[in-house]
């Protein structure tokens, strides 16, 4: 049973389940668009101001959407016993955690990236800055999914874990927000955003190596 086959099996299962109840997968995306759309009503419609604020607004909305969508990742697996089954299947639980994070990124991370395009245009962001924003969000959303999977594994099965996950995860998302927003701010001033993007890539690699262990340990703790 090669690791790739295991990851594909988990991914196939996640896609089937998302396809079968699309509405639930859609909620974080609608939330993301709505959260960004509130700002023109708050700050007025002139795009001169909005384009300055847009990167920060889109990053904060992406963070919040990720912290809400990651909460339900293991909830149904924990309830119907398939988490127990995966733990006892002999397959490395860290790899299952990694596959779950990848599934979350594909189901919740990538759509947020795609939705950023129309939203950024709506907020008057010029294309040069948009490219950097997309790059930083791509790296950042990867970290969000990985870190979010570990934290949601820690709180799976607890009542009221919706807010708890957001409360635990947002302080840990702050470095991503700092580097993501400043990358786009630099791009808007014409400066190079390479440094911040390298940092985000570094954080992604760190998350890729450490969070699977944390997810596996957290799942074993919740199952005991």
């Amino acid at each position, binding site marked *: 049973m090669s690791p790739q086959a295991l990851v594909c099996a988990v991914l196939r299962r996640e896609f089937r389940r998302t396809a079968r109840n699309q509405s639930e997968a859609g909620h974080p995306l609608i939330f993301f668009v709505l959260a960004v759309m509130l700002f023109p009503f708050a700050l007025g419609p002139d795009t001169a101001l909005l384009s300055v604020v847009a990167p920060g607004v889109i990053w904060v909305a992406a963070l919040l959407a990720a912290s809400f969508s990651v909460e339900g990742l293991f909830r149904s697996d924990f309830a119907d016993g398939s988490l127990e089954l995966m733990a006892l299947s002999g397959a490395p639980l860290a790899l299952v955690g990694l596959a779950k994070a990848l599934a979350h990124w594909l189901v919740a991370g990538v759509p947020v990236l795609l939705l950023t395009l129309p939203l950024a245009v709506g907020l008057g962001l010029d294309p040069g800055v948009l490219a950097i924003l997309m790059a930083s969000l791509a790296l950042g959303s990867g970290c969000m999914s990985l870190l979010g999977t570990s934290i949601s594994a*820690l709180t799976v099965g607890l009542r009221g874990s919706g807010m708890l996950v957001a409360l635990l995860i947002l302080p840990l998302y702050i470095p991503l927000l700092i580097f993501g927003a400043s990358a786009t701010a630099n791009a808007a001033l014409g400066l190079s955003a390479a440094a911040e993007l390298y940092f985000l890539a570094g954080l992604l690699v760190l998350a890729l190596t450490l969070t699977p262990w*944390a997810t596996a340990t957290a799942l074993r703790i919740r199952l005991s």
Partner: protein
Amino acid sequence: MFDFLNKYASLMHFYRLSRRLSQWLAPLTAVLMCAGVVGGLWFAPTDYQQGDSFRIIYIHVPSAWMSLFVYMSMAGAAVSILVWRVKVAEIALRCSAPLGASFTFLALVTGSIWGKPMWGTWWVWDARLTSELILLFLYLGIMALQNAIEDRRVAARAAAVLTLIGVVNIPIIHYSVEWWSTLHQGPTVSKFDRPSIHLHMLIPLLLMSVGFTTFYISALMVRMRTEILRYDRKTNWVREIVTTHHGSPSSV
């Protein structure tokens, strides 16, 4: 080695040890604190730049230092929970979190009070203060997670994992906040570089730092004893302690 650790980390032995420890630790804390405050307020010369407002350093710096020291000792406890399942470490982790949060809060408040005379505003987004603020949220997160799980042993292990995730993130948060504050405010010398420290200024600072540490340990001991009594309340060693106790309070 682990059986030894587990047997002698048994709660009864720890309870007796902590009683003896508190006997002399609490008065030592009082002495150190008084000496530090007296030294800091009376004997330390006035700072030529900041005048007497620098005396807030004797509260701000020790509590800022303690907020990190407590988190690091919690991380140590977290490792021994996950690797050796030491019960005492589980109770230490649970009781340290509120103390760490108090020190962080104290560092935040005294830091912003100290900043007021220098910059005219109560809160300034200085790198160190902002890192303290995020550290406070990490502490609150650990306490929230522990209260959300009923089974104490599972709660301790979950909080241990969260502590280790946090400990990896603390340097990242600190560095990114430094980057962020220099990005937005320009690379001025950080407002919190201590003034050129005069010997008479340094001694009270050391006294206060050691005093804060002994305060943390003795306050932790009291909290842990309560937790141990509640945890082992059905055992006969607890029954014997409680009946012979006649309610005479143990010193801090």
